[in-house]
Every structure is written in C-alpha cells, then in structure tokens.
C-alpha cells in the first residue's frame, strides 16, 4: 500500500464517520421539532385522535425513537429517502428535478466565476497597485460581502423592473410547457430567465476566487523561483503563467470546497429568484415541516460537503508534489 493509498483510506474512513455523525445530528434536530403537517388538519377540527395515530403510524412516527433512528439511518444510507408527507410522492422524485435545476444554475456559474475571476485575479495580482487591481478588489469585495439576496434584489429592481431586460422570477416563463430536461433547458426562454440569477451567482463568488488568485500571484511574484524564471529570460506572460500555475492548487481546492457548499450557499438566491431548486424546496419543506423531504435535502447538502472536502484533500495531496501524504491533519 502506498503512502497515498493509506492517506486516501484514512480520509475515506473519516468521511464515513462524519457522514454518520452529521446524519445523526440532523435526525436529533428534526425529532426536536414540534408538530408536523398533520397539525393543520387537527386544528381545522377534521381529524380525531385515532385517525391522527393511524397517520403517524403510517409514517413510522409512532415507533420508538431508537427504531425510527435505525430505519432512518438505513434508508438514508441506501438513498431510500422515503415518502414525502405533503407531496405524496417518493422524496427522490420531488428532489431530483430540483437538484438538477440547482445544478444547472450553480455549477456553470461556479465554473465560470472560478475561471474568469481567477484569471482576472492573477492579472490583477501581477499588476499589483494598478487601478485595475484596486477597482476589482473593491468591487468583488462588495459583491462578495453583501448578502446574495440583497445583490439579487438590486439586480431585479434594475434589470427586470426598470430596464425590463430580463424576467425577474422563475426558471421558465410561466406559460411555458417544456417536456423533459432537454426542452426545459435548451430554449431562449430559459436563457432569458437564466441570465440574471446566473450573473448574480457569478458575481457573488467572484470575490473569493479573485482574491485567492491575486494573493497567490502577489505572493509568488516576490518569490525567488520567479526571479530565477525571470533570469532565464522567460517573457512576462510566461512568468505570469508560472506564478498562476503555482497558485492553482489553493484555487482548485477552494473550488472543490465551494462546489460542496453550493446548495446551501445560494438558498437565498433561489428564494429571491423563485428558482425551483433544492434550496428553495428545502425552505418550503421546512416551513411545511415535511420531515422526509427536509431530511433528505439536508442530507444531500451535508453529503455534498463531505464528499467535496474529501475530494479537496485528495486532490491537494494528489496534485501538490510537496504535500506530505501521511494523512496527519486535514487542512
């Protein structure tokens, strides 16, 4: 077994344990919640106690907490998310299209911003002290630090309400009747709706990548090895490329981590734009106390983070020639 494999194994084990713990925490928190969707029915005076008990039994809410926990763990880990209380559908059937909608918005946005902002950041770092650098930093800091829903509201007011360039809400125009993912996503109407949330997501994340790339390059620019590259007669651009290459690893790692946090990070974006994604669905489910749905959505989000963390560590260990792969700490 090589050192790397050993490291991989240990990281994997940690991730599994983390998943279990995280899932248990979610369980405990969910069980602490009072009430359930049936309360509405009781309040309206329509159900008697027997009927309530019957329904609870149907969803396993009458079993001992311990049994509920076990069957919960078992079903989550086998991706059997159960049956949505409110939607009378398997949870996965509810979540799958939302997940796709979220991914279709967020992944391209993240990739775009990672590439563009990193390049811009590298360029800014290389021209440290220039107006471009200062401006880009202030601008991205503004976009990065302002909560995303505020940026989104500003954009809606400006581009949708005042300039009327794009629609403010939704993923497709309300009268559209697409069939299947292809028809949904490959259309001008979709693009029209896509632009605004996409732009906000891109801008929101631009700050982190820009600063990371900029700091990396600034750091490398004063370094000895770049001096040697310069002495060798490398052109300015080649030098920048080397500095960029040397700053890639943190960016890559960060990208991976961000990818893991993607769903949770932009819940508010989905809410403001009424984007039918998993984040918005989660907020709705929480409001309606649809346990199985909440549980599955939070689980997916946690899992994404855990997997991304794992991937980031592994990528780091794999791509950084100098990293020690004894698996000591995970940064």
């Amino acid at each position, binding site marked *: 077994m090589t050192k790397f494999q050993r490291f991989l194994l240990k990281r994997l084990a940690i991730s599994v344990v983390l998943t279990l713990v995280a899932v248990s925490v979610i369980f405990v928190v969910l069980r602490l919640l*009072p*009430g*359930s*969707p*049936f*309360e*509405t*029915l*009781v*309040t*309206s*005076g*329509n*159900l*008697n*106690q027997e*009927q309530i008990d*019957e*329904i609870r039994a*149907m969803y396993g809410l009458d079993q001992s907490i311990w049994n509920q926990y076990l069957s919960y763990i078992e079903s989550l880990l086998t991706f059997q998310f159960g*049956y*949505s*209380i*409110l*939607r*009378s*559908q398997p949870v996965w059937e*509810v979540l799958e299209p939302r997940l796709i909608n979220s991914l279709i918005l967020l992944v391209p946005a993240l990739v775009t911003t990672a590439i563009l902002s990193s390049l811009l950041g590298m360029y800014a770092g290389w021209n440290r002290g220039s107006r471009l650098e200062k401006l880009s930093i202030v601008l991205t800091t503004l976009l990065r630090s302002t909560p995303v829903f505020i940026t989104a509201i500003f954009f809606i007011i400006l581009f949708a309400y005042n300039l009327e360039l794009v629609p*403010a*809400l*939704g993923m*497709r*125009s*309300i*009268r559209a*009747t697409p069939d299947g993912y292809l028809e949904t996503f490959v259309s001008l109407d979709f693009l029209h709706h896509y632009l605004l949330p996409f732009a906000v997501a891109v801008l929101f994340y631009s700050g982190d990548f820009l600063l990371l790339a900029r700091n990396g390059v600034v750091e490398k620019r004063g370094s000895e090895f770049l001096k040697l590259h310069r002495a060798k007669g490398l052109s300015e651009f080649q030098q920048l490329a080397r500095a960029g290459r040397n700053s890639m690893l943190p960016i890559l790692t960060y990208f991976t981590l961000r990818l893991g946090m993607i769903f949770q990070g932009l819940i508010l974006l989905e809410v403001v734009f*009424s984007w*039918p994604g998993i984040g918005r669905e989660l907020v709705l489910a929480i*409001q*309606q*106390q649809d346990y199985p749905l909440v549980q599955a959505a939070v689980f997916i989000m946690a899992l994404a983070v855990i997997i991304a963390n794992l991937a980031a560590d592994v990528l780091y260990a794999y791509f950084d020639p100098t990293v020690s792969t004894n698996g000591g700490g995970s940064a």
Partner: protein
Amino acid sequence: NSSRGESLEPNVPDGVPETVETKYWREWETVDAESPPLEYSATAGSVLDRVPVEYSSEDDPWMREHALMVKRGLNDLGVDVTLDDRPLNQLYAQSWTANGLEAVISMSSQGPDPQRGLDPNPLLMRATEESLSNYDNYYHPELQDILTEQAQTTDRAEREELVDQAQEIFAEDIGAIITLFPNIITAVNTDRWSGYVETPGNGQTMDSFVWTEVNLQPETDNRTYVKGVSTSMNSLNLAWAAGGAEAKRLTFIYDGLFDATPDLDVVPALATGGGFVDDTTVELTLREGVEWHDGEPFTAEDVKFTVELYDEYASTSQVPFYEPIDSVEILGDHEVRFNLANPDAAFMTQRVVRSVILPKHRWEDVGNPSQHNPDSPVGTGPFEFENWEQGTRFEASRNDGHWMFDDDWRNDALGDQAESGPGVDTVVWLNVSNVDALIGSLQSGSIDAVGTNLSDLQANRAANSEGIEKMSAGSYAPLIMKLMFSCPLIRDKEFRVALAKSLDSKGFVEDFLHGQATVPTGENLISSLTQWHNPDTTDYSYDVDEAETILEQAGYTWDGQGNLRFPNGDAWGAFVERIQPENTNQRRTELQQGDFS
C-alpha cells in the same frame, strides 16, 4: 411575580385565597396536562401582570396591525401587553399537544373552508368540551347542551332554532372574541372574460368552488383561462392530501354527492335527491347517465367503494364526509343507503356536500391509496385532468357533457350571475412565486386572473392597468381571538366584557383594510353570509369609557400611573366568586354583587 407600578397590600376576606393561579377548573377529556402551559396569576390588589398576546404575522399580512389594535385596546384599560409573534406552525402546535394556550389571548384567522360556510358545526362545535379544538378550555353548561342537541337534530327548522340560541349564548358570554370576517380580494382581467361569479369565502377566482370557471364566457377568441396562483398542489391524490391546494383544485375533476351554490345553498350533484329516512339512516338517489372521464359509467358501487376506501385508509381530506358513516348499502344501481353511527344533523347540509367520489375501477387495485399518486386522476367533474407539473402548472379541460355546463341548470344555481355563451375550454393554473409577480403577470396578460388573496392596495395597483378589475367578496371565515379560560383574568366575565368593548375593530377595518372586511355584531362565529346566521346577538360595542366603568364597578382599580389593579378587599372576594366554574358565565349583577366603584 414581580408586579409593575404600586400594588396595594392584599386585603383578603376570610376564606378567600390571596392569589389565584391559572389552572384547569374542570376535568378535561381532551387535555391530559397536569397544569396549563400558561402561568398567569391574579393577586388581590396587585397590578396586572403583562398579558401575553400571541399571533402570527405569517397568518395574514395585516395580522400584526391587528395585534397592535388589541394591544392598544388593552393599554387603554391600563393593561400592559406582551405581543408574541410566533411562527404559524408553533401556533398550531399548541393544538397538537392540546395542553392549552400559552398566551392569554391567541388570535388566528380561519381558512374559508367551504364546510365552514355550509354548516355551523365546524365553528360552533369547538365550544364543546369534547372538541379537540377546544384548547382554550371554554365551557358553558347551557351552550354545551344546546350544541350537543342541535348536532343531532335533523329537522332543519328545529335545528336552526337551536343554532340561533347557541350563537346568542356564545356572543353574550364572550366565548371568544370575533373581530372581523376579512374579504377575499383578487384581481381579474375583465377584457378577456366575463361571468366571474362572486362566491362567499371563495371570491371570484379561488378554487373551493368551480362556479366562475363553469360560468366564464370569453370576450375574445381565446378559450383558455389562465389563473395565477401562489400555492402549488403537492400531489394528485385529493383524498389523502395533507395540504389545502390539492383538496381544492382537484374538486374541479371530481364531483361530490351534493354541491353548494354561491348562496351557500345545497344543490344536487352526483346525488339528485334523498335524505334522512330516520335519525341514523340516509338514502340517496344518484344521477343517472353520468360517465367517468374515461367513459366508464358512474354507479352506486363507486359511492360504496369510495366511502369504504376512505374509512379503511383514513383519508385526510374527506374526514367530514365518511366519519359518521357506519356502513354503506347499495339499494340499486343508482341508489345508496348510508347507515350513520349517530344521529348527525350536519350530514345533509355539510358532509355530503363537496364530498368526493372516486371511480372504483381506478382505485380498487391500488395497494395503499394514501401513498398513491395517480398519473391522471379520473373523476366525473366539470373538468377533465390534462396535465400537472408540480410547482409549475396544472391544466384541466372542459367536460362538455357535465350538467353544470347546461345553461338552465346554471341559471338555477347562479341566479343573476349566470351567463351563457361558449364558455371556457381549458383552465390552467400557473404557479407564480409571489404576489408581486402575480400582479405583474396579470398586467402583462400572461394570466387572466389572480387566484390568491391580495391586499386592497395590491388589487388597486393591479387594477390600474387597462382591463384589470379588482374583485372582492365577503367571507364566512372569522378571525378568532381565543381566550384562555383557565386564566383567572379571563374567567371574570366583567373583564371579558371590558375587553370586548375596548377593541376598535371597525376603526381597524377602516384604517388598514380599507373597509374590506365585515365586523360582526358581537362575538358571533357565524357569518351573515351563511344561512345559519342569527343577527340578534349581544353586541358589546366599542366604548373604552364604558369598559372602564365596568371594570371599576367590578372592583378593579388603577394605580398612579394608570395601571389596572385586581380588585382588593371585598371586591376581591367578589372577583374570586365570579371566576368559580359555576359563575364564570355570569355578570356581576346576575350574581347579586354590589358596585365596587
């Protein structure tokens, strides 16, 4: 309990406790708690503790204003208030555990569920001891008897008499405070369609009734009617749906045994006639020649099957219908008999109306109907299912042969509001995420009507556009302020009366709802829009001075800063007497207590 302001030294007549805590004064069948979740005590001569008042601003946009109105009223009496804005689900959660209210006053608006407009029971019966919804622990012996009796009185006239009495007693006793019945306000495009039907509690465009949709006539070539809504259906399983939207919208696809008109009158639907043969037996004749949307004929088998299925799998939305039915017998192809477990007066006025009958041939092979989500629900209703995409759209098309599309029939049911013409072809519900977008879509023509409650301001804003009109209809669903009857303060009827008189509901409706609500005469749960309304109930009209006088006479005093104090001395003795279980429904004078002012 530290009190504010200067309290008086308690001065208590012999044998009278100095302090009275909130507690259960009767054994409650539905409550298993040792003690109520509210801690509020009355002490002779002490300044009243802050009165906790709860509401949920999620309930209605103006709910906080309403709460502030209550606060002002109590402040005017010298009572300080803690307003507790709670998440709606927490407000509901109190009923789940049914230990009672956590606040002295708890307000929430009731949904305009058709059942609540058709029969007085859904609202009135909450005042009975056995009701799960009686978590305010209200009890009035006489009312209890009358309500129990009327629920079993199948004779309409007799029952009406009893119901009238019940309303009088409740209002006089202030079993709760009923401030207003808010209107249903929406906006529609009148350039494209005419024939919007005003239905109480449902307005012109909401989904509890199909009148508008069957009556609409196109003003243009377009026969597809698009309604923007902000809540989405979660499934196509009407009977086992937990939410409200599917139970309403899917009734477009299904028919009930009877239906209700915009006057809240019962009219035949799948059943054409029949009624009680004795106290616990109901026989109905069913409409002949009705076909399911897939072409199968509708028969008594379907009715029997449906009721049994609901019962076996505990349908959530059809509880009112099947609950009293003990068994169903098929008397003929189009004749059924329901055997009821107990005499049930509401059966013919409420339970069979808007009931949903499922096609047996579709459901008999379904394993667990509560987890079944039919791909394409088949009913007998005026509209046929076309397609549904969760959270996006729902589409149904005209079932041309349905009796509702018969002009004569509609003339009967709708009276003046009936219009004739080619009618709609397709109805589309589009999910629009928020009100702002709804208005925008209506103005831009993407939708023809808003199927969500708007505020007056919003409706006016929408109506600013050419061809858009505001629509408003009254509602029979009240805003109820529950009072926690285990709390000594509330148990004092004198205080209840003063409280009722301190609330300026009319002013509130004028100021914040632009008059778009009905203020009832006194604390009457039953709206004047329904057929069960009694207009002659006691009205404790808004009058703060009078309220103060009442309190003063009951022995309450005020300290230097104007804070209200509990009675002291002999007056305290009278107070303690008033709040005893046998006296809590009586005024001071009825108990021959003196004037303590």
